[in-house]
């Protein structure tokens, strides 16, 4: 049985008060409660403050390129689908440059668990608007305010029939931990968008801003009703629902590959002699 400290990595260089600390804490607690050991899981990240996540935890890790978290996670999962693969990305990372990969990972329904640190800003490059920054917000390189509509990742996910769609808040740690565990337990691709205040550069979407808006999705809500889920996903303003918005039971990408049904690819013997008979037949 692993302990919380077993997942502890280097000392974080995040700003004091950063929402990422709460995500890290919830992650460690969720892993321990799920009975997972550090060597049993792999974390992939991209670029941004979220990209540093694997530096600050201890398990198998890969820090990839900006926006390219999901292709790496998909490759890992296909090589060894016996291993849980977790992707940690940011809003600038995954909803911007990596947007195309997100769409196709959701379509495939590869069993990768995606946790998006959504702080509605680029933190690493010091305070430019991200794809989730509200229209009109004035920032360093948006002196006239953001001129595009913000991306609604959860509405996008429900529209694409993503098999697990949830939102958490870094200021509600226990609830977040529960969502991480649910995402891990789900068969198929899981998107957990985590509202995560950037205390240094985002002076709009603060802890207070989120706290006064976030509410737990009602217990009698049925997350398997896609139309209702779409309506829920559109709620982002004075009230912001947190919890599981949508879940379905689509077959996974791994399920559709007969070769890996019994044994993960990495555990299969690589034996070219099996090809010999086929080659002899044609040559």
């Amino acid at each position, binding site marked *: 049985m692993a302990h919380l400290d077993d997942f502890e990595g280097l000392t974080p260089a995040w700003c004091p008060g950063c929402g990422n600390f709460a995500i890290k804490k919830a992650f460690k607690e969720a892993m321990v409660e799920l009975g997972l050991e550090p060597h049993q899981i792999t974390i992939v990240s991209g670029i941004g403050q979220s990209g540093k996540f694997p530096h600050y935890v201890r398990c198998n890790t890969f820090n990839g390129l900006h926006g390219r978290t999901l292709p790496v996670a998909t490759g890992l999962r296909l090589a060894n689908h016996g291993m849980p693969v977790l992707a940690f990305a940011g809003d600038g990372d995954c909803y*911007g440059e990596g947007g195309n990969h997100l769409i196709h990972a959701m379509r495939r329904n590869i069993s990768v668990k995606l946790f998006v640190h959504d702080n509605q800003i680029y933190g690493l*490059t*010091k305070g430019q*608007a991200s794809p989730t920054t509200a229209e009109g917000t004035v920032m*360093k*390189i948006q002196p006239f305010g953001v001129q595009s509509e913000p991306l609604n990742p959860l509405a996008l996910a429900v529209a694409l029939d993503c098999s697990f769609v949830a939102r958490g808040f870094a200021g509600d740690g226990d609830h977040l931990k529960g969502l991480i565990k649910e995402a891990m337990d789900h068969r198929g691709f899981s998107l957990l968008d985590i509202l995560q205040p950037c205390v240094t550069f985002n002076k709009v979407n603060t802890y207070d801003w989120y706290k006064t808006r976030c509410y737990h999705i009602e217990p009698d809500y049925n997350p398997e009703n896609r139309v209702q889920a779409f309506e829920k996903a559109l709620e982002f303003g004075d009230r912001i629902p947190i919890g599981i918005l949508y879940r379905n039971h689509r077959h996974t990408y791994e399920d559709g590959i007969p070769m890996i049904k019994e044994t993960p690819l990495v555990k299969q013997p690589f034996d070219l002699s099996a090809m010999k008979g086929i080659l002899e037949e044609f040559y």
Partner: protein
Amino acid sequence: MRDLLSGNYAIAEAVRMAKAQLIPAYPITPQTPIYERLSEMESQGTLPGVMVRVESEHSAMAMCIAASLAGVRVFTATSSQGLALMHEMLHFASGNRVPVVMGCVNRVLAVPWSFGSDQTDTLSQRDTGWMQFYCEDNQEAFDTVIQAYRISEATMLPSMVIIDAFFNSHFIEPMDVPDQRLIDLFLPQATLPERFDLNDPAFISNVVTSGAQFLPFRERAFTDMEKAKEIIREVDIEYRAQFGRGYGMVETVQTKDAQLVLVTSGSMTSTARMAIEALRDKGLKVGLLKIKAFRPFPSREVEDALQNIPKVAVIDRNISIGKEGIFCQELKSALYNSTARPRIYGYIAGLDGLDVSPEIIENICLEVLGKEMPDNLPIWVKGN
């Protein structure tokens, strides 16, 4: 006007004064301050152009190409991974013959992840058909942006104006910012062909159906890049006449009687100047060859500078794994069919922004002076 500007701000100032009309950009360290500075100018109403906040560097270059084809002067800037992501669009830019000017701040490519200077990001784009100008200081970066628009618009080939991460990009230096009136005289408003002509529709980025059709496109671009050498020289002479500063495709310092010529590019050239002085004071006949234009490669200038020079030491802040430093390779190939036959000693130094101090450079020179034959492989300088 005298001003104190970082290399990034110097580039931004030049872009403003060049009146670039469309500037799509994406943040990446250490280039981001160029983008921020231009945004600040835009907010103050002093930027004649329009900025676009795009979703990636790839999109930034795609927009530059399209807008340039539609007839406007464009600019973007990037570094490292951003430049690598642009790679396929760089070929598109030169293939479509658009005079895009781009600021590039040299930064190491991952992995491992880091931030310091390393020219391998831009040198990896060697064969994309872009002109490349490596600048020594912030004044040169400013002047080169202005020159690059003239050169690119005369040749219809894109240009990279390149500075080193932090040594140039973030260090503030005193420099001269000319009057807008004089810049306007040197660089009038762009009169680019509008290639999306509604009265005469054309197929841009067309398909060819055979090598016989493809080859003339590349041959033409190659020939025009060769002709660009003369244009670069002429523009520089004109710039010097108007502003009192010129750089040439290369610069030589005390090479005439030299027993050893040191070859550098970018910011380490300033340090090399000091090292050369110190060695001369000790009675050693050492000179310096600064290579500014890398594409087109200044073969004639290099050949002239190294006639009758017994030894050459090249310091590369870059590496082509499997061969050697990239300036070193290029220098060797430029001299092979020439009458200049120096022995060429290759050094790799300063990767990821490691300091290349005057002492390091002096020691390299002393080592080469005392060494009969060059090694087959480059020598790695690990720093002080």
